[in-house]
């Protein structure tokens, strides 16, 4: 019976206009390391989209700068026979997130569509989730953000293009993290757009080499499912069984 219900969706392709009660999507991201050039456009796009502060040199030295999405460089071998891989690491949006398990205040929780969200109003700032996160995806807000970081003189004065998120809600003393740009996804669903095709997280949208794909993993026609099925794939720290929804394709 269920296959009969799902059949129209298969024919329609990746349409997010289907009724919400029918089936929850499972948002996932595929990062093709073979295509990734390590340009870090995703990091910059993330910082711009979510107004993540740049962090002063002092903060970077003390390792207090906030990263929602980061790039790590991993090398194998020694010069001249050396291979370097640059790996973008957003929040892995685990299916079994340790941060949600340890959060005392229920401030971080997993939405039904699988996105792990941090609620700043509930967060008490105990930093237990940062200790428990196997991917270093969480950052603590060590200070009040400067006014300058809100008002962004470098951007054109077009408030209509930006929603309320996330400008006024950044709070000192709470933990924050990547949200898979859920504000874009939610707005896209409301407007009936195709998620993964028309609507993308900022990092995926900014990738110049199209190394990242985003979409519903349960939908076989979504870009993410197609990319996932194309080659061998792996997840980071699979031995911990957190079951991340950010999937990597090896070089």
């Amino acid at each position, binding site marked *: 019976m269920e296959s009969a219900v799902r059949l129209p969706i298969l024919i329609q392709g990746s349409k997010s206009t289907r009724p919400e009660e029918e089936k929850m999507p499972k948002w996932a991201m595929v990062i093709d390391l073979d295509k990734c050039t390590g340009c870090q456009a995703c990091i910059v796009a993330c910082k711009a989209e979510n107004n993540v502060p740049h962090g002063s040199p002092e903060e970077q030295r*003390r*390792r207090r700068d906030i990263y929602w999405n980061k790039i*790590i460089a991993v090398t194998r071998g020694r010069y001249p026979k050396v291979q370097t891989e640059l790996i973008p690491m957003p929040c892995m949006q685990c299916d079994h997130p340790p941060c949600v398990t340890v959060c005392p205040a229920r401030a971080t929780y997993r939405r039904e569509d699988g996105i792990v969200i941090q609620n700043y109003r509930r967060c*008490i700032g105990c930093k237990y989730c940062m200790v428990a996160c196997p991917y*270093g995806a*969480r950052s603590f807000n060590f*200070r009040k953000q400067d006014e300058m970081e809100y008002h962004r003189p470098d951007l054109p004065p077009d408030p209509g293009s930006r929603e309320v998120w996330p400008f006024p809600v950044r709070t000192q003393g709470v933990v924050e993290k990547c949200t898979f740009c859920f504000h874009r996804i939610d707005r896209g669903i409301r407007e009936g757009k195709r998620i993964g095709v028309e609507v993308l997280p900022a990092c995926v949208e900014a990738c110049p080499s199209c190394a990242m794909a985003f979409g519903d993993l349960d939908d076989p026609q979504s870009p993410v499912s197609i990319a996932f099925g194309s080659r061998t794939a792996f997840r980071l720290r699979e031995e911990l069984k957190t079951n991340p929804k950010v999937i990597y394709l090896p070089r």
Partner: protein
Amino acid sequence: MERTYVTIEGKSRGYYLLVTLLGLGSVSLLVSFIVSYLKGQQVWGVSNIIPWGQLIIFYIYFIGLSAGAIIISSLSYVLKWDFYKPITRLAVFMGILLMLGAMFFVFVDLGRPEKFWRLFGYYFLNNMTSMFVINSIFYVVYMTLMVFYLWLIFENKKKWAAIVGTLDVIWAISVHMGTGAIFGLIGNREIFFSPIKPFEFLAAALTSGTSLIILTTLGVFKFTGRHIRQDLILSLGNLLSWLIYVLLVLVFVDKLTHLYFPGREPALYLFAGNYWWLFWVFQIGMGILIPLFLLIYPQTGRTVKGVSFASLSVIIGVFGERAALVIPGTAYPQHFFPGFMEGIWGKPGIFPVTVWESLLCLGIVSYIALLFVLGLKFLEILPAQEDEAIVAVEGSNPLLKKMG
């Protein structure tokens, strides 16, 4: 014949000087708390790599001291060894204050301290899979039990004190094991992750609690011109040496497990990384080897001076043990991807000791000490001067008797 308890007069110059000094220390708590609340935790040494710093070290340390003090206090009421009566009230009172101090440390460590009440107000409505929530329930009941226990002792209701005391001891054990589980259950931090972490915490709590009681008893009795039975201190020293053996075995088993299998880099980092001295000098040297030597060697182990030096060493060493867990445990970089991680993500974190964080710790410690000193003045905690008849009734050291 019953032992009587008295308040101290508290009118001497030394007493006022001590209260003033501790009061000044408590003011530093207020100032540094306001500064860190307004400026954010950027004024501390914590970072995104080492999220827990000095305050969490002190927090688990104080919980341990409290649990240890309560368990030691049980010797007289629960096990009915009247020999230890002179220090029971002192130990329970210290247990309450140290627990209060631990709660202060958690409170100021939070990024949003004004939401502290949620941990203790919602109970099971919080996320019950979090060890913090389970512990917060433990702590509330523990605090209540301790206050009730002390009240029963003050009222001299011996039968009830024995019952509540037993409950309190069981609860103190679970409180501190729960605190150990905060770390022991974190599977992605290899230095934390261990099923015997709660037991290790318990053993460390007992050694540090016993040592603190020895030192406080000696200090308070000397300061108030009281006579303390030497064999009481010596028997506590004897107990301490056995507790240190247990701690040594547990630490050995824990580290051996981490070291035995090829995935031993985290353990090697703990032994030889940039925080090797926390482990070797403090945890192993001052926490275990030096006090063991002082207690076993007959010329020092049979004197009050030797026992008090051993206790001092344990007090510092167990603090180092807590630091050697919290700081290197998170400083060791997590390996997200096979291969050599370049740049900052592959480097171990560094924890600088900063002024405001240290002042906060100093402030809380002096505030607790101030409450203790004031408590001696207003509560009947200390025994009246020794009386030969009472000493005869209370008998000699039961521990030594049992061991033959």
